[in-house]
């Protein structure tokens, strides 16, 4: 993939910004000179119109739903099974005890993940974790593989973008003790074997290569969203060793265990095995900002064909904002609206996503796949937002009418959202992921239990409020990926201006 064009939107914006800065600098200079040498003007100048305030992510919540004071049945039955302790090394331990389970899962998760590294070195943490899973001081890789084969257990890692990344252990309860011993040694005393490092790095190179062949990944990388496949796996073993000792530190670490486990015994076990883990003051999150809003990037996929992939991204509320449940629900309805509109008008595939990260880089994105008229993408997104902002939603109930007032459909959308949100999250490993997410976002491993309560509490007015506050007004980072035949025909002007700018104002 090569970038065919410079970044019209971005350069335009950059130029304007530079002009404004220069103008301000000149004004100050002139003003300074004026004070020294020039008398005050006789007539007051015409007052300049106040500059339009740039759109910002709302600082205060705009929705008014409230979480019921009493937890719902799901939270009530599960909350007593979750216990949190602080380990002697400063790490947090959260155990969900499920005595009936014959399978257990442990995640040693490091908060921050790729948000801690510049985007072009985002893979460092994943590379380090991958290597940690391939041997420790007491257990060479061959021993680990043999144990995995004999017990059906697995030691691996999860790299989930800028929220967190983790070293994982999944296994059958009958082999718990021996598997945990190996896992803990991988965590506290990784071998960092040079031979295995070459293997891991090669795997990463292959992974990056395949990601770069994917239009969506290319677009994400171009928009410099966190977790994108930018950079290359050129790290050395020394880089990994440095990263382990300076960044894989216990104040970033939360260990989540789900299964037939007792919190005190588990705490004692990890206290005895993780004393040697590095400690530190923690890395600051990378200050490298994502792509400046309102850019339009055109990426040449060097593939034949007249179809494009379009990705638009806007920043949104942080995970802890009370607006998030309403916003997630709103985006799921927006997805339905957009699908209907796009299907009717151009037959392309599309999706709208609300990606809430544990770091402060949450975003909402609009994706149109295999679209033959990419210049229309923004207009289609605007249309869907406009409908939702006016309280219209797809009926989802069939019949003659395609749309219905939000008040009539919201209950069904809530159920559908809950169904979709939890659909593939059965099993200890998935529960552990939910708990790590919860802890990384809210500092509480049990917070996920109340997501159902929060979705049920959202009202139609909340949906309309978050749509108007978060989806009407922001500038969008647009990326279009296609072949060289289609890209020159893209009408860049169609992507200028704020999202929802064409709406009537309500």
């Amino acid at each position, binding site marked *: 993939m090569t970038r065919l064009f410079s970044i019209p939107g971005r350069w335009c914006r950059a130029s304007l910004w530079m002009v404004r800065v220069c103008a301000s600098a000149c004004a100050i200079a002139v003003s300074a000179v004026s004070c020294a040498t020039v008398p005050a003007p006789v007539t007051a100048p015409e007052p300049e119109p106040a500059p339009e305030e740039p759109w910002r992510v709302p600082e205060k919540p705009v929705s008014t739903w409230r979480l019921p004071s009493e937890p*719902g*049945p*799901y939270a009530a*039955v*599960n909350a007593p099974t979750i216990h949190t302790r602080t380990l002697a090394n400063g790490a947090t331990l959260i155990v969900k005890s*499920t005595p*009936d*389970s*014959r*399978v257990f899962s442990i995640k040693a998760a490091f908060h921050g993940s790729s948000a801690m590294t510049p985007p072009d070195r985002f893979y460092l943490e994943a590379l380090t974790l991958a290597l940690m899973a391939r041997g420790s001081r007491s257990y060479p890789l061959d021993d680990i593989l043999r144990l995995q*084969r*004999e*017990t*059906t257990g697995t030691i691996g890692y999860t790299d989930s973008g800028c929220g967190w990344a983790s070293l994982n252990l*999944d296994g*059958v309860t*009958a082999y718990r003790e021996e598997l945990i011993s190996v896992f803990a040694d991988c965590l506290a005393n990784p071998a960092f074997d040079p031979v295995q490092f070459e293997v891991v790095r090669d795997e990463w190179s292959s992974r990056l290569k395949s990601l770069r062949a994917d239009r969506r990944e290319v677009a994400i990388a171009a928009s410099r969203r966190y977790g994108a496949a930018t950079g290359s796996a050129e790290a050395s073993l020394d880089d990994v060793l440095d990263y382990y000792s300076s960044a894989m530190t216990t104040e970033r670490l939360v260990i989540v265990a789900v299964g037939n486990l007792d919190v005190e015994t588990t705490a004692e076990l990890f206290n005895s095995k993780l004393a040697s883990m590095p400690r530190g003051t923690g890395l600051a999150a990378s200050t490298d900002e994502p792509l400046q809003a309102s850019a339009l990037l055109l990426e040449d996929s060097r593939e034949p064909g007249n179809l494009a992939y379009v990705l638009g991204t806007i920043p949104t509320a942080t995970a802890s904002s009370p607006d998030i449940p309403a916003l997630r629900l709103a985006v799921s309805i927006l997805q339905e609206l957009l699908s209907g509109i796009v299907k009717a008008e151009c037959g392309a595939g599309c999706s709208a996503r609300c990606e809430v990260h544990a770091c402060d880089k949450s975003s909402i994105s609009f994706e149109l796949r295999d679209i033959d008229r990419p210049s229309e993408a923004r207009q289609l997104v605007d249309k869907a937002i406009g409908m939702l902002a006016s309280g219209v939603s797809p009926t*989802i*109930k*069939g*019949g003659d009418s395609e749309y219905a007032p939000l008040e009539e459909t919201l*209950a*069904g959308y*809530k*159920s*559908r*959202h*809950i*169904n979709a949100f*939890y*659909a593939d*999250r*059965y*099993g*200890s490993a998935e*529960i552990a992921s939910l708990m790590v997410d919860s802890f990384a976002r809210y500092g509480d491993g049990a917070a996920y239990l109340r997501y*159902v309560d929060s979705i*049920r509490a959202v009202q139609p007015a909340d949906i309309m409020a978050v749509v108007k506050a978060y989806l009407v007004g922001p500038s969008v980072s647009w990326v279009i990926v296609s072949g060289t035949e289609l890209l020159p025909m893209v009408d860049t002007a169609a992507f200028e201006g704020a999202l929802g700018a064409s709406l009537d104002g309500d």
Partner: protein
Amino acid sequence: MLVRFAMCVILALTAIGSSFAEATSVRGLHRYRLDNGLELFVLENHEIPLARIQITFRCGAVAQSAQTAGLFQLYERMLFKGNSRYGTETEFSAAMAELGVDKWYGGTGAEYATYYCTVPSDSLDAGLEFWSYAVTEPLLDAAELELQKALLASELEDQIADPDHAYLSSINKALFPDNPWQHDTLGNPSVVRNATVDSLRALQNEYYLPNNAALFVGGDVYPDKVYNVVNEWYGDWKQGPDPWAQKARKHRVDEAPRSAHLVLPDETLPPGIAYMELRYRGPDVASTPASSRAAELWSYLQDTAFSEYKKRVFDAVPALYDTDYLGAYYYPQRYGGQVTFYAYCYVDPASPLARRVSYDFFKAVVDGEASRMASDGGYLTDAVLAASTKRMSDERIIALESPQRFLHDLSFWWSVTSIDYVLDYESMLRGVTRDDIAGFLREYILELQPVIALRMNPVDYAAERASLEAAGFVVTTPEYSLWWKGGQR
């Protein structure tokens, strides 16, 4: 005082409620039977706030005659086109959407019809009510039926024309020469076109009965509460005569097919690559459960790292593709168990496929591996058998951790045999001996003839056509595969 009295009533009701359930060996799994014979299995697991509702009937192709083949598919369509509560498909879909369900899943297979969906657990009661109308009181509207008959018959014709279906149907016809319609999951378009409301009502009255069904509910649910709701919505469903009382049949080894040689010119395979298989009529779970369990463990043994099966077969047969692309497995069924040996291979003019599959492959897997396993005590060591049993059991524990997967598995085994087969699975597995496996191999593999089948790119078929025809291989055209057209066998 009143509060105390109310508490006593609640406790008494709770005690009564608990007595509904029959204990099972699986923690959290509760088993009930309604007065009308409907079996209810409830798996309590509160990890995720969702609940699965699945209803399964013992029917499908196995219940078909030549005159009704295809009607179960048609009935399934009509099931969701309106019922006494939700009169039209639109109303049905609207109610489903209100529950947060995009669509229902499932279908009608060889030995069962099953339908399921997942709802948020706070919508479980509404979900159970919703399904009750669909399964107990379908309208079977005559006008809608005419529409669905035409649609389904047309779809069946398209599917019958699919080479892949023709290949599998040809194998089924060879494996089950006396009753191929009982293994044809699609059916005959002519039967569908001639269906009437009365013929579907007859099907409903014979098979879609509470005493021929089981309801599986699992997830963030409370068993006795589920029982009460199910009793409310399904308790009045009228039972009928057991449809299987007179039809249960025992698998006879002498039903086994005569040898058949089949070939499919298959455009989905790249030139130079072919697929070969030997398909046997295996044990039936319902009538020969011990052989079935032995076959399951044998099946696992062929694929485990503890076994040398793949390597030896790869070394013995010329031009096989890769050890990861060969294997053997047993497919358990109530009346149609099958055992398959398969391998991908290179097309090689020096080694014609007709001989390679009929002689080299057969010799390697049957005369070689199966025969040695059945007769050579040193072939399968106790250590390998124990390690394989343990690993198979562990893999199963992991695979069935999710209530969704567990209930799906339970539903399958309920339909093909009984849930005892699942509940006692691990102990039954540990009870399988080397002699059991040897017995299975002697009875079902070594003393029977397989269906021998090949798939290869049309270009390669053209090049080997003469040798294939000389060896008696028949091309599995759609015309050949149709049992109602009496294609030559």
